[in-house]
């Protein structure tokens, strides 16, 4: 390990370990790793104050490749471990790396409660809609009809929508990106800037077991139709600004509208407000196909964090008290056996 080399800020290299990266050639995880290593130097946190915590899965191998502190825990439990780490040392910059199975199947409960409590950390969910590490069984995000070793006749259960789940759990920051997107670093920066639990779903290509399931919007040729990149304060436009998202005031649902000569106001295109929770709910549930895929920062409305509240309460409760255990034991209803008392 090159832990010894003095850290010169500003270079992605400083965030790379000497460990051989063990993903399949062509796996989307490589691109995400690079994006993170490109982003870290710009966040102002130091490698020694950064901790990457993961569960189990291909994605969860991530910490071994980051020259920071890292904990590759057990399947589904990374959020719980992270909660202990952050409460024990709130100064640490905590990143959770997880997969669609790790975070939403076995780990769903911990993900939910971390979001509900609003622990200050970043959760990067690598969604490849499959169990990669265990060789390709379908996952809770796999689409209906996914044939896999455990569903030879196709899966029948309705998939979860990670961002909808996150909002339902009370998330205050929800964003989306994908492995090879150049915008991924911006999404990561926004997530890091958000104080509280930042939930980031990253569509990731598992080229071995679920190849190209996202190409309908990730591929260059589909970008115009398929990608709706949201910018706070900007109108929800896509397809080179010729289409937009508006509210159908009758049906009280979203709809796609055509924008003629850039006059989006006329078309009633919604201006993205990252603090609007109602719209966020609609955005994360827009059915892909009829709608583009909403990407970028979908929702960002901070609330007090769990760790701050715990620290504050610990401090307030300790206010003016001394940690004298001897005194504590001697307190309350006690009695004394005098020297004169019966001998042993």
């Amino acid at each position: 390990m090159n832990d010894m080399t003095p850290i010169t800020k500003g270079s992605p290299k400083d965030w790379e370990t000497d460990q051989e990266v063990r993903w399949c050639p062509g796996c989307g995880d490589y691109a995400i790793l690079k994006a993170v290593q490109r982003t870290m130097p710009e966040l102002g946190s130091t490698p020694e104050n950064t901790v990457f915590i993961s569960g189990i899965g291909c994605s969860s191998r991530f910490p071994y490749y980051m020259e920071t502190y890292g904990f590759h825990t057990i399947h589904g439990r990374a959020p719980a471990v992270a909660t202990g780490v952050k409460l024990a040392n709130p100064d640490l910059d905590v990143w959770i790396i997880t997969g669609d199975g790790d975070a939403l199947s076995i780990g769903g409960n911990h993900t939910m409660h971390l979001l509900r409590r609003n622990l200050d950390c970043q959760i990067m969910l690598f969604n490849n809609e499959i169990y990669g590490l265990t060789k390709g069984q379908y996952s809770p995000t796999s689409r209906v009809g996914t044939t896999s070793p455990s569903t030879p006749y196709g899966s029948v259960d309705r998939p979860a929508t990670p961002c909808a789940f996150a909002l339902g759990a009370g998330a205050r920051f929800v964003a989306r990106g994908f492995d090879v997107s150049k915008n991924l670093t911006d999404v990561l920066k926004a997530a890091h800037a958000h104080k509280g639990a930042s939930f980031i779903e990253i569509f990731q290509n598992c080229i071995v077991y679920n190849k190209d399931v996202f190409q309908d919007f990730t591929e260059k040729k589909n970008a115009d139709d398929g990608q709706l990149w949201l910018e706070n304060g900007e109108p929800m436009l896509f397809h080179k600004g010729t289409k937009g998202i508006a509210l159908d005031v009758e049906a009280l649902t979203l709809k796609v509208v055509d924008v003629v000569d850039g006059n989006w106001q006329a078309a009633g295109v919604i201006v993205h407000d990252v603090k609007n929770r109602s719209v966020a709910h609609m955005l994360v549930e827009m059915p892909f196909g009829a709608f583009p895929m909403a990407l970028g920062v979908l929702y960002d409305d901070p609330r007090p964090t769990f760790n701050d509240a715990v620290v504050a309460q610990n401090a307030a409760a300790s206010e003016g008290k001394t940690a004298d255990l001897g005194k504590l034991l001697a307190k309350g209803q006690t009695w004394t056996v005098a020297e004169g008392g019966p001998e042993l």
Partner: protein
Amino acid sequence: MAIKLQNKHGLEQMATAFKQDPTGDRAPEHSEAVVVRFAGDSGDGMQLTGGQFTLSSALAGNDFATFPDFPAEIRAPLGTLFGVSAFQINFGSQAIDTAGDQPDVLVAMNPAALKTNVDALREGGLIIADTGEFNQRNLDKAKYAANPIEDGSLAKWQVLAFDISALTLEAVKPFGMGNKDALRCKNMWTLGLALWMFDRDRQPIIDWLNAKFAKNQVLADANVAALNAGHAYGETAELSGPLKQYHVDAAPASPGLYRSVTGAESISFGLVAGAQLAGLKMFFGGYPITPASAILHHLSRLKEYGITTFQAEDEIAAIASAIGASYAGQLGVTSSSGPGIALKGEAMGLAIMTELPLIIVNSQRGGPSTGLPTKTEQSDLYQAVYGRNGDAPMPVIAARSPVDAFDCAIEAVRIATQYMTPVMLLTDGYIANAAEPWKVPDLTTYKPFPVTFLENVPEGGFKPYSRDAKLKRPWVKPGTPGLLHRIGGIEKEIDTGHINYAPDNHQAMTDIRSAKVNGVADSIPDQEILLGNAGAKLAVVGWGSTYGPIHQAVRRSIAKGLDVAHIHIRHIWPMPKNLGELLHGFDKVIVPEMNTGQLKTVLRDQYLVDAKPVNKVSGQPFTISEMEAAIENALNA
């Protein structure tokens, strides 16, 4: 005393329980030990009554042991059999180790309380009953065909039945409370009577009442009035018959400051003390479960001791968060009972693989499955020693009493931090809830074992899985420059801690993990014999809360001239180095356990000694007489 005057049969019994004092008849009788059981409806405040009576026993200098016996239901419908709540105290002028086999006095606040508790009362014992509650509705609820107070079915006991309800209402009338509130004072009236019976000072209770109801003077006065009325009733009733006063001398005790402590309290205090001796802050991750919750409750009030308590979403999150805290440099602690501990098994493996300190407290209860949540048992020893996937060795310690739990908690912290390993601390529902007098320890007498975190790159470079003489790996806090590293649950490479699947490495690491834990034995004292001699005809080997009944039974057996010894094991894994040799020295070995024979398995495996199980799995502690019988059987076998 009156009781014996009336019932010849009772007399013999009595003699065994009360040593008579020659001096005359009118003065309080003297006796060595008395067992009193307060029983009533969940709503009657019997636990409170018992608690305060315990305090007054303590102030009277008696040694004592208590046994609260809650209903499983939160607050069952009034007067039902399953809604009965009881509190038993055994106090005396000699060392007391158990809450007593059979009560001498039973206070029954309603028919259901009588029905569920009277059979335990020894023949000739005294029943104090509130006739005010023995109405048809309550008799029906208690499934009494006829009123037992009147149908003579209680002939073999002394019955003192009178309308406590009415007497209480009378006593608190001046304060003009509603009927419901007024009757709430019944328990203080009863306590007052009990205080008189046992020749006790009322003042401390009165002070306590005034403090408790400081915000509501009327309530305070009413309760004090009820207390005094009950006490006065004793004095007057005395003139007219069965009720007599007796006195239990102070028990010999070394001078000093005493308090009463439950197991849940002393484990909490012990963990705090341990953390202080290690120089660490504590993180406690828990999820409520009976009877473990009390530890979470106690610690959540001690934030000024550098303790963060976290009520997690489940037991897995509780232990996982504690592991995270340990990784971050605090003392991670988690606590639960059987079913919850079962859920933590996988995560314990992670702590073992990553070699992080961690305390897992198991307050055992009746099993299997949800089992008997409010009853005590020792049936999680297998789970503690063997209950994980893979070869996953972990030290296990068991507390034998509320007071002992304090030192056990400190010992658990010592081992966890000195060896970088999770440690399981076993207690049970009985220890958790029972109270004992405790001579407040002088903390300066405990030897500190400060943790030193690795903060700089050592000679020859930093290796996360390098080891010291004890095979302990370094503990590094994230945030430390120059020592960045990654850990996880996959097999580790020797020294570097990198992922390694190589056969030789796995063999070596498996050997290291087991050698490290076995090495803990080098740091623990040799097994002592508590009573009797090495090489005796019979060794009674116990662990945990069977201590009381075993100790008393062995003491009595030795007094009877039997050649028997008592050995009580604190370190369940690894065991004291001399234990095998010690055990082989006895002709016979029996192992009484509140399970189907779990410690017995470990002993037979480790030492190939023919340890014979003596088992009780009823959710109730052993009685002393059961133990004495077991000893006789073993010797005669």
